[in-house]
């Protein structure tokens, strides 16, 4: 009997309405063609890695000047 009571509790109006809400909203979810997820940011910016490689050092005069810019 106590098990039946617990089950009935689970089916309380709040839970039922939540389930109904999920069902209703899943029914109007975007179709595949509408599922394009555009990000509405006006400005998009990236920051590149400061350094990703170790540059070779040369004894030749001026060789590393260009690399240091």
């Amino acid at each position, binding site marked *: 009997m106590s098990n039946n009571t617990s089950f009935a509790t689970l089916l309380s109006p709040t839970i039922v309405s939540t389930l109904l809400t999920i069902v209703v909203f899943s029914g109007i979810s975007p179709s595949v*063609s509408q599922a*394009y*997820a555009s990000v509405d940011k006006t400005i998009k910016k990236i920051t590149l*890695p400061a350094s*990703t*490689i170790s540059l070779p050092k040369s004894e030749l005069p001026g060789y590393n000047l260009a690399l240091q810019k």
Partner: protein
Amino acid sequence: MADNKVHLVQKSRRQFLRSAGMLALGASPLLSLAATDNNEGVSLAGGMRPLVKYPGKRDLILVHSRPPHLETPFSVFNESLITPNDAFYVRYHLANFPTEIDLNTYKLNVNGAVKKTLQLSLQELKSMAEPVEVVAVNQCSGNSRGYSSPRVFGAQLSNGAMGNARWTGIPLRTVLEKAGVSPEAMYVTFNGLDKPVLPTTPDFKKALNIDHALSAEPLLAWGMNGEDLPFLNGYPLKLIVPGYFGTYWVKHLSEITVLDTEFTGHDSYFMNTAYQLPDNDCLCITPGSTADKSRPISTLPVRSFMTNIAAGDTLPSAKPIELEGIAFDDGSGIKNVDISIDGGITWLTSTLGESLGRFSFRPWKLTVSFTQKGNALVMVRASNKNGEVQPLRASWNHGGYIRHAIESVAINVT
């Protein structure tokens, strides 16, 4: 009935071995050495190439950083038929490329031999017509250049300078028709926001002939696999040219110019001087010689790969083993993918999988069983509906372009 095939999950096994190795080294003085050994495991003429992380990307292979040139680790192509956005390769030519784009000021300019010049915001483009989608392979002209023999000048690439994505946008011709193309029009050129650092360096401009530009195939795309284009793949707008090499897929597209003349001049360099192939039947020359004539690189030759085995793998004998891979071409359509497990003496036809469109990777699979132990050479050869078949040996050209020879994987059978 239980599936008793040996399913190959090489990536996981390699990851496990690498992780196990790292754990074993954890308490040893070799840890610092192992920590710098962050590479895909493919060695080309310049040695191992490091894995690096760029914005919006997972760890990719660093080809060079000035400007970014990143290759996709080949194991990615065993994950899914669609290449994830964060794994898609990156290739810039000019070091002065944008790192910040404001959609309030961004415009696509359409000019030249048109009735009416246009300056279109991204939102105006999006509302101009019903969006269309195409799944298409973008492959760098120099994909696999690192295997050219004799070695050639240019980025030493393995096989990961390619990817397959679902592109969303509107047909290029929609915009051209709105501008009103002159009846005398011959070419349409495309330019992006990336610029040369020095005035003596040509801008990166590409051209399509007017018939191709007005066909249904080229797209102006803002979406990639259901999301905005990744910044490093050309946000906010990219030219998509299905069936053509990636050099035409201009990133950060900002200008479309209709020409009623030939495309010449300083900024025609990347059409008329670079990305040229010998103009003969094999698109090749003998190393050390020069082609009498050349022509711009264009469409993708038929090509195929195995994705679930790699060189040096050990496979069991006398057990069914399911080999898997991909094939693609210029949109003619894959006809067959044949597999040899005896070094090319005999060939078996694989089963083609789901088609996501004629410009997409096409999956294939074949169950084989190795009868002999020892070294074995597994080969994959695709043909298309246009009668093209992958050649046994790669032809040579000065740029290391359009490599598409039969791929071979040397394995060990135990």
